[in-house]
């Protein structure tokens, strides 16, 4: 049976269920216990599972990430809480040089089953060091899986899958959506990695959005409908692995695509997705693929500027419309 719960509750349920199921699942991070994180996402867990499994750490991200790697190699399944995605920069060595490579470097003998739970998203007036969407960085590193839930349903299902995965998984939640509600079944479910979700069917253009940009694409498709255009909306859900087949199938049908992501555009997620489509659906394309990422500037504090840096439904619709109408021709 379906019910409406928030993204935050969905995350909390996922962790609670997995901690009940598997006693090796532990949680590590700053203020994860009594405080339940600054976002209050983890409230109640320490009461149920105790401070041995819900562990408040010092403000030492590299340190507790390293400890999680070691714990994962020796029988635990740690969930590491990185309070803001921006702090990923602090754990890159432990995440990318150690966790990501251990299974390979050991010829398959050592596993590192851990989850890094963190977030992304701007427009919270938190300025340049608390607003970044850094998933492109980890997606580039072999050995890491990367999940980007866009709804409470996905937040729960992807996180449960991540916790059960025998590899390091980085999961980015959209910090602006913690209070967003959505349907989440009472019954247990998992969402397999590498399976895109088709939210809307359409014929004129495919809008591919990740995380926070999924709703932006849905809203854009509404705007497009008003203009008589039917847009297909696709959410890849995980970017490593990426459901290339589903994306190509859609674009081969619509012949046009707009790729939208909240990470910086330059050398970001939209580039990979656009490049794959351009290569592998080349003969089906009727127009250049449009990419919309966050503006390539540090996130400004001022609301007057910050709002300019993130793609909006209007912008997505406008770009989609222009390719549908054959207007966007850089090189004619």
């Amino acid at each position: 049976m379906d019910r409406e719960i928030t993204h935050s509750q969905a995350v909390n349920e996922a962790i609670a269920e997995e901690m009940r199921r598997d006693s090796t699942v532990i949680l590590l991070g700053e203020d994860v216990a009594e405080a339940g994180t600054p976002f209050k996402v983890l409230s109640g867990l320490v009461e149920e599972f105790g401070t041995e499994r819900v562990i408040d750490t010092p403000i030492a991200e590299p340190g507790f990430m390293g400890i999680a790697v070691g714990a994962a190699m020796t029988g635990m399944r740690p969930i590491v809480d990185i309070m803001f995605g921006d702090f990923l920069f602090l754990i890159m060595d432990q995440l990318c040089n150690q966790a990501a490579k251990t299974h390979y470097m050991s010829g398959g003998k050592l596993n590192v089953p851990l989850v890094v739970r963190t977030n992304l998203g701007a427009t919270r007036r938190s300025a340049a060091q608390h607003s970044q969407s850094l998933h492109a960085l980890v997606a580039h590193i072999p050995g890491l899986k990367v999940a980007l839930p866009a709804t409470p349903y996905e937040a729960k299902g992807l996180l449960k899958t991540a916790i059960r995965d025998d590899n390091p998984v980085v999961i980015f939640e959209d910090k602006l959506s913690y209070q967003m509600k959505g349907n989440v079944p009472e019954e247990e479910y998992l969402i397999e990695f590498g399976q895109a979700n088709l939210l809307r069917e359409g014929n004129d253009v495919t809008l591919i959005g990740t995380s926070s940009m999924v709703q932006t694409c849905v809203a854009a498709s509404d705007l497009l409908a008003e203009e008589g255009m039917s847009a297909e909306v696709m959410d890849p859900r995980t970017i490593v692995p990426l459901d290339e087949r589903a994306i190509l199938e859609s674009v081969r049908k619509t012949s046009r695509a707009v790729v939208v992501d909240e990470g910086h555009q330059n050398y970001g997620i939209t580039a990979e997705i656009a490049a794959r489509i351009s290569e592998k659906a080349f003969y089906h394309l009727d127009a250049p693929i449009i990419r919309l990422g966050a503006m390539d500037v540090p996130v400004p504090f001022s609301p007057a500027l910050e709002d300019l840096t993130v793609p909006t439904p209007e912008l997505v619709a406008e770009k989609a419309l222009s390719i549908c109408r054959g207007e966007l021709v850089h090189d004619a």
Partner: protein
Amino acid sequence: MTKSVRKNTEQYLHLYKQMVRIRTFEENANQLYLNAKMPGLTHMYIGQEAVAVGICEALDSTDRITSTHRGHGHCLAKGAEFKQMFCELLGKAEGYCRGKGGSMHIADQDNGNLGANAIVGGSMGIATGAALSAKLLGTKTVAVCFFGDGATAQGLWYEVMNMAALWQLPVIYACENNGYSEYTPTSEIAAGSLKARAEAFGIESHKVDGQDVLAVHALTQGLVNRLRNGEGPFFIELETYRYHGHHVGDINRSYYRTKDEETAWQKDRDPITNFGRWLEEQDIASSEELSEIISGIHAEAEEAVQYAIDAPYPNHDEVDTHVFAGVKHALPYISGDSNGS
């Protein structure tokens, strides 16, 4: 009233004013938040005023400081003005950082404030580097690195202390121990002794009552003089307390600290009340004079707040300026337009 006290009257009053300025600024900032006039969140410095003021009054404007997420106090103590600060907090173009930084990144280069920092511990290297510059350029200036007790958990501190000690850099590591790291008593997440951690690198270390502006100032003044003579680095642990929540939105705090504890600090150890009382006791200022100082500052703040509220936001075309020094607009620039124009 001793002779030395008399001689220093002006300075004592200045210490007092600076502390009042900080508290007044913060009360207004909190009110802006409550009135939904300020974008985002901010971290109140109230309660810790004697630390910033005691230390910064021992510095020249050419000396450098680095600051933290709880940075308004440091910024004001180092000489910043209300107007540009409020403008920055509201994201206005006249702010110290043209609204691009906001509360957590407020910087005031002209007065030697290299900026607040939203990464806990993130400025420890920067302060140490400023001290390296001072040494290499022979400027005789010093650097003070402000950070919290929670920040001592960051490995960066140990790395830069090692280098500062090896290279004898003119830097003071000033740890404002307010007892809490966000919502956790730091005693639960810090093993051993903070002072011993610095001493292990051969760094001379001191502990001082951070609510006593004279004690903080005297200690710092002595250390700064020694830094200018080539000694250093030094570490100071300042015992202090934040009266408000971790940030303006942290209202229900009972799960991590008691109301009694909060009240006790405010009642017995308030740096402004106690210093004001001392000023009266020493006949340096009357209670009326102190009240006048306070109301003057209140009026100034009120005006600055209104100014900031009325001030314009930056133009849209500023969104991609200041990404690169020497490049007007970053967006065309990164795609190969060499002027970024």
